[in-house]
């Protein structure tokens, strides 16, 4: 009998061990290395690094800036994302698929591309404004080089993130809950406020936490908008220090990155506290509620929605395309000046740009695939695991996973600055250190939706398979994976599109030969070659868009809800 017992728990042990190894390698190890650098630089305990960091006024200014744009951006994202999600999901608004597709697009566009696009729209060199002769004179300050500019773009960037999570929650809202309230005499607005939004609290909170972490850790937008105005947030401060000082200032940047980590952690903890106050699990499955009829308001609401989309998507992209077609800075676009030279240059003539396209593609495919495969078992242990130590481990690892990319980049640098002991393998200055950071960095994007997916599955479905004789791995493959796949794969696709033109991590980790699209774009912009940067941006946006369309062709073969931009 004891042998039977041990045998039957074998697969569980293997799974737990594998998850533990992954978590230690990708999360605990870099975090511990980072902490060691802060409390014991050079191997002996000392507070020198902390004291030096705390003394510097630059630290305090950057921290304040980070909080301001982080909270501002999150608020804007949560308000706009939730509003759009409610309008799209619960009303009889027309052209829903197109609206969803267009509204989600900015999320698929890298932050620095968004920043570049908006800069091209409003700057004195704007080919767009020049079309109307409305461009301010050269030398005028671009209005986006400001705090509110950064907050605005962060809100636009991450509004769709909130939208996706809230919409996923709204899709699962059983209509009985809404109908019961309406039968109880509640009108549409009271139903929204008393039933729908409270039930959506976990989704909204999770979305807010994710948006906050993204805003706080965002590098592209404050780099493009803040650095010219000398408005530094923590990630850009780290970048500047590292770019100026190299590995010598790693200790100093380690402290700063830990500071970002603490801020992000505070956001996540606040979400945990808010979500645990009540039980929000929806147990029944049912059809979604009948859409609310907007009646005579419908044309107005629709017009507002499309206006929003023109503002946040079409105008900036239009500006970007215009910039990519002019031969140089400040030149107006006319039939005479229009040229494709910028494209030819980045695609065929510039070596680093060529390498960057190749590197970014395979890095993002690898990261997305890995994350989906790992998120399902990790989510299983976190959501349904019963051993207490797994939950403790979860507590220890969820935070580093959710930390901003800068933190992981610095930790990876510290970890791999010297060759890996015993093997002598050198990751520093190769593309592999970027892959390592991507794997660790992006897992959270697939893990969080997967865990919420688990929470909404009736566990009896797994238990039914268990009594049917299926072992853990069989259940994983045949029952659990298909049920959480929509959530996990949606996360994987997000990862691919995010990683494709990722900048935050690779800006700190790249070396000659291992450039990514984001890095090359950034260096073009910094060198004043906005036209090349715009051309590269247009190419990545086009690739992303085509990918979305191609994936759409697969939609009939995928479980519904996998593709975030599809209705």
């Amino acid at each position, binding site marked *: 009998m004891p042998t039977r017992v041990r045998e039957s728990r074998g697969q569980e042990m293997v799974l737990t061990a594998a998850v533990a190894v992954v978590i230690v390698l990708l999360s605990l190890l870099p975090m511990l290395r980072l902490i060691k650098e802060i409390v014991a630089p050079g191997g002996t305990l000392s507070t020198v690094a902390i004291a030096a960091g705390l003394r510097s006024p630059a630290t305090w200014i950057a921290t304040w800036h980070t909080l301001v744009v982080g909270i501002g951006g999150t608020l804007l994202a949560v308000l706009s994302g939730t509003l759009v999600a409610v309008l799209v999901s619960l009303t009889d608004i027309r052209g829903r698929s197109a609206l969803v597709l267009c509204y989600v697009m900015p999320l698929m566009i890298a932050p620095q591309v968004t920043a570049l696009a908006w800069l091209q729209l409003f700057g004195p060199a704007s080919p767009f404004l020049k079309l109307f002769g409305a461009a301010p004179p050269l030398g005028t300050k671009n209005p986006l080089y400001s705090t509110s500019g950064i907050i605005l773009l962060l809100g636009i960037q991450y509004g769709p993130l909130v939208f996706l999570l809230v919409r996923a929650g709204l899709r699962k809202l059983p209509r009985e809950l809404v109908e019961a309230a309406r039968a109880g005499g509640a009108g549409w607005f009271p139903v929204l406020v008393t039933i729908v939004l409270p039930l959506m609290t976990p989704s909204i909170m999770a979305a807010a936490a994710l948006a906050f972490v993204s805003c706080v850790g965002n590098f592209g937008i404050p780099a493009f908008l803040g650095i010219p105005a000398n408005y530094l947030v923590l990630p850009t401060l780290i970048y500047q220090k590292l770019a100026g000082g190299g590995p010598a200032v790693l200790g100093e940047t380690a402290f700063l990155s830990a500071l970002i980590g603490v801020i992000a952690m505070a956001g996540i903890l606040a979400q945990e506290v808010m979500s645990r106050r009540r039980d929000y699990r929806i147990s029944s499955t049912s059809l979604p509620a009948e859409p609310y009829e907007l009646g005579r308001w419908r044309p107005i609401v629709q017009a507002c929605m499309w206006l929003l989309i023109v503002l946040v998507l079409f105008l900036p992209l239009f500006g970007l395309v215009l910039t990519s077609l002019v031969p140089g800075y400040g030149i107006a676009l006319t039939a005479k000046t229009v040229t494709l030279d910028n494209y030819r240059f980045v695609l065929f003539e510039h070596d680093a740009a060529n390498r960057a396209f190749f590197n970014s593609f395979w890095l993002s495919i690898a990261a997305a695939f890995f994350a989906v495969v790992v998120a399902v078992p990790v989510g299983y242990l976190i959501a349904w695991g019963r051993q207490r130590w797994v939950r403790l481990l979860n507590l220890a690892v969820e935070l580093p996973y959710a930390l901003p990319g800068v933190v992981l980049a610095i930790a990876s640098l510290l970890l791999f600055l010297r060759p890996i002991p015993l093997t002598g393998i050198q990751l520093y200055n190769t593309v592999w250190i970027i892959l390592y950071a991507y794997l660790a960095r992006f897992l959270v994007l697939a893990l969080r939706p997967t865990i919420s997916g688990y929470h909404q599955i009736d566990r*009896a*479905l797994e238990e039914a*398979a*268990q*009594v*049917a004789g*299926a072992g853990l791995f069989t259940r994983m493959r045949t029952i659990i994976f298909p*049920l959480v796949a929509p959530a996990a794969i949606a996360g994987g696709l997000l990862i691919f599109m995010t990683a494709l033109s990722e900048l935050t991590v690779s800006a700190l980790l790249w070396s000659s030969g291992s450039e990514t699209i984001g890095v090359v774009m950034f260096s073009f912009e910094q060198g004043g070659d906005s036209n090349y940067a715009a051309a590269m941006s247009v190419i990545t946006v086009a690739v992303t868009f085509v990918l979305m369309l191609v994936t759409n062709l697969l939609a009939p073969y995928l479980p519904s809800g996998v593709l975030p931009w599809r209705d």
Partner: protein
Amino acid sequence: MARLSLDHVTKSFANFEAVKDVSIDVADGEFLAVLGPSGCGKTTLLRLVAGFEKVTSGEIRIGSDVVSSSVGSVAPEKRRVGIVFQNYALWPHMTVAENIGYSLKVAKLDKTVARQKVEDALALVNLQGLGQRRPANLSGGQRQRVALARCLVAAPSLVLFDEPLANLDVHLRASMEDEFAAFHKRTGTTIVYITHDQAEAMSLADRIAVMDHGRVAQLATPRELYHEPANEMVASFVSQGILLPADVLTGEDGGHCKVRALGTELVVRCRPGERPRAGAKICCRSADLDVSPHGPGFDGLVKRVIYQGGAARIEFTPAAGPDLTLHFEQPDPVTLESGAQARLRIRSGWLIPVGTAS
């Protein structure tokens, strides 16, 4: 088919004993119902037998194998038990046929054999031709049948039902009850059936285990449970038994004894060996009461009369026990009115045995 034994099984969660020292033997092919109010531990009991929970102490055996003990526990997938879940737990991403054939696929059964078995199972629950449907496109009763077919296709040694009719409407319940009875008769499977519905338990089960606060209050046949409840909890829980304080006047003789209740003397059924004692309780059923305007009996006040078609349910408070409420049925013509005085007679009753009060 196999017998199931629970031997002094206790299950505690953090600081709460959900199941306390439960011992039940279910014979091979027996239909056992576990009946109790919500929170009595019956669902925990089912999860212990299935292996989803581990016992704190005691032992569970299926057939001759120990499957749960404080040493360890055989995983649910190795126990060969079938479960019909309350909410069916059909996998939404599979067709009906895939749902039913799942355990065969897991066991790597030959595909043609498996397909035949699935067809047979569908036929057994009258769902021929629905194999390619998705669970979402089935009615509640059809889903229940799929769940039943899914569990019996693997020929489990033991089938557990977890309140399978709780989500169905009344008409469907009656027909599903018939179906379960027929299923049991046809397959001869050992069944443990969890329910809070007495009528369901009574009509289906060979024996019923009544649970209360984690303990087995009584394990007996439906008839015995009704006529000879072992304690006050069972007496009042089953068919709304009426409990009356009584003094036992004579010792047991031929299965009967004389008691005094509500100021009148009457003869009730009792266990062998009962001795005269004070402070006893008797259990009466509404069928044991009738109106006796002029004969022996006790007086009281008619509190409520609820006409139910063909008969009325009368609630009555005896003058000798103003805190008590007796209820019984008076067939048409209904003569009693609320607020009126009346005289009742207890024709028979059961003396609750001593020392087994809950």
